């Protein structure tokens, strides 16, 4: 029987803590069920008592609208004093916009997984995203280029810059209160790196023989042309929240270091990221474990040694935090 799903909103998949909630957000062309398995299963193996939710949203709607809706739902449905967000791909942008929509001190950490954090998708990346079939996306879900959700992916940089401006110009108490005690991390997929030949394909491409015959030429060209390393859709430089350029002014740069200098920005890589492309990164148990560690570790200067089970497997760059601690 074909299922037509209508699953938006929060769904608890693990834990019963009243103190700590974690919300997992899917990407474009997905539903919350796609985030529940396999990523959610791997993640909850490490998350202990924390209440873990998957959150479904209409990815064809605009990023800001989805961010605001999530903020509304978090505010009205979750009473946990600490809430963390883990967003995959587009879900990372929605998480960032929810976290900065208003002053919500309960939101602490935002982890973005294979998210184009510092750039906007080009036509080539959009076309690749649209052409990856059900081997990556289990749904029948064509990319609809005129929807706000897709259009926003081509202007993500402006949207995030606009959010920063909105925070700075807000007439509330302290604009920076919106960003108080928030911290941001990124995890990339790095399958397409300099050790690969031009003939190697990431696990989630998984083309059938028929597809391969017709699609490989154009897709291959696009993948080769992208700046390595990347995951087939998002480059590491776009994902990396710890770096900034002179023209890079977004809301994350208002996040302040902790009272003891704990960094507010971190880009973390586990060794298996090298084997993962945009779709298959959700299947990686180590990536899920790293995502949890980023939430659990209070000082990212120690993230590389935080988990003995991932010792010597994690590398991280912490970003300087232009913002200063609030008094």
């Amino acid at each position, binding site marked *: *029987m074909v299922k037509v799903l209508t699953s938006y909103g929060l769904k608890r998949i693990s834990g019963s803590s009243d103190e700590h909630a974690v919300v997992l957000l899917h990407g474009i062309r997905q539903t919350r069920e796609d985030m529940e398995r396999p990523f959610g299963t791997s993640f909850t193996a490490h998350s202990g008592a924390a209440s873990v939710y998957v959150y479904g949203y209409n990815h064809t709607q605009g990023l800001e609208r989805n961010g605001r809706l999530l903020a509304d739902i978090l505010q009205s449905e979750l009473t946990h004093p600490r809430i963390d967000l883990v967003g995959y791909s587009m879900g990372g942008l929605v998480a960032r916009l929810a976290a900065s929509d208003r002053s919500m001190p309960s939101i602490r950490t935002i982890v973005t997984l294979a998210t184009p954090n510092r750039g906007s998708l080009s036509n*080539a990346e959009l076309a690749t995203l649209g052409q990856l079939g059900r081997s990556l996306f289990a749904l029948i879900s064509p990319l609809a280029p005129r*929807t706000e959700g897709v259009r926003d992916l081509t202007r993500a940089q402006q949207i995030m810059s606009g959010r920063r401006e909105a925070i700075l110009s807000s007439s509330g108490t302290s604009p920076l209160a919106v960003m108080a005690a928030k911290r941001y991390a990124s995890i990339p997929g790095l399958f397409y790196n300099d050790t690969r030949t031009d003939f190697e394909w990431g696990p989630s491409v998984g083309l059938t023989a028929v597809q391969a*015959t017709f699609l490989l030429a154009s897709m291959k060209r696009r993948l080769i042309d992208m700046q390595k390393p990347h995951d087939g859709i998002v480059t590491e430089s776009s994902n990396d929240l710890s770096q900034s350029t002179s023209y890079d002014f977004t809301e994350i740069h208002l996040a302040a270091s902790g009272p003891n200098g704990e960094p507010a920005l971190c880009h973390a890589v586990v060794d298996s990221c090298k084997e993962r492309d945009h779709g298959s990164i959700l299947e990686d148990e180590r990536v899920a474990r790293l995502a949890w560690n980023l939430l659990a570790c209070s000082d990212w200067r120690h993230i590389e040694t935080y988990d003995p089970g991932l010792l010597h497997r994690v590398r991280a760059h912490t970003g300087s935090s232009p913002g200063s601690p609030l008094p």
Partner: protein
Amino acid sequence: MAVSTPTARGGTLPRLHELPPFACFEGLARDFGVDFTLRGGAAARAAMYLEYRPGEDFDLFDVAPFTSDIDLRHSGEAQLTPLIRDAIRERVPFASWCRWSLLDGEKSALEQDNMELSTRVPLRSVHFETRQDTPLPADVLSDLRARRVSVFRNPAFSSSGLARTDRDLEVFGVLLALNTLVDLREVSGGGTVAHWGLVLNWLAEPAARDQLRRAGSSPELGARLWHMLAPQIARADAEDRRWQEALSAFLRDGSLQQFGLSAGAISGKHALSVSRLVSTGGFRVPELLPAVLTGTRARLEVVAALERLSLPFAPALRLDPAFEIVAFIPDLTVVGGTVSEEDMDVGHYSQANDEFLHLTWKSRRNSASDNVAAGLTAVALPSSNRQETDLATSALAVGGMFRSGQPWVRLDVGGFIGNRGDGRRVGVAVLRARDG
């Protein structure tokens, strides 16, 4: 980026890259050391948006809806063309969902020579350049302000290269004017042809009827006729007697009989398909008047198709809840086999080499609200071979809605076409993103 209207600049059009959908062309011009010029229907529609809807956002699909190409010229050498084409596909947002015709400097000069000898429709002569603002000629400006489509026959038409090689017919000038009229009404909400009487007399001339009979025996001319006529049939005002009379003139004398179309067959149908001419002398998708299911029947058929295509012992195919099914075209043929460079797009006389299927149909929904139009897309489903589901569902698609509320969809069928001539059979499910 702010968009200024032509009138606000004293009768000049802004530079191409000042139009938001073409913003990337400033960088492309700089990187390749060339100038770009946007011409044809896309340029005319962009000018209309600037004139009649000042300050309103428009996207690439507003200026190139349904079957419309994007006609570009660049000032460089021919060897730059494939590199520029790749760069457009890399950098211009949503370029892969459109057909691009790209002419180098030499071919542009040839095209310009042909245009000088062709029927003149002032509103279609509009162009945008990256190099400079473009002053509007007086006849263009007066037509724009009067919401009027003038058409001027060219006594030298028969001496043009295209006419001498039987690749163009003078009577097609009428369709150019009518297509401009349909765009004018689409964008501005009104408009008329300057001299309907002269147009109808032209169509009644023995020479015009002879030209249409020639179109009836030439696949290339017939294909071009269908490409120009289909948008008219889809959008012409049914209450406009003169317009309907003009369209009837194009359909008499069996001008489309070679494709199995008679005037009577067309008038009774509510769906049209347009695709590229292939070397067999027919269309890539030969079903020009396909059956289209809507409403509950469409939903049931799509659900049944997904069930049929689900693999045993694998998760059932799921439809994304972000979309609802609005129509289903159950069985279309995509003819296989590639088209040689020499034959490239003789049906269009452009250099666009993309393979899109365009569909439009009458819808009971009469709302052309932006939300509904923006959310239209489509997905192809194999008619039988479930092994091809991944291939079919990876086809890029976009849709929109004409002012009348009639939907259109453009689906990239290039991925289905191999060197084999056996073709494929697919259904097309038209989906709309749910609002909320």
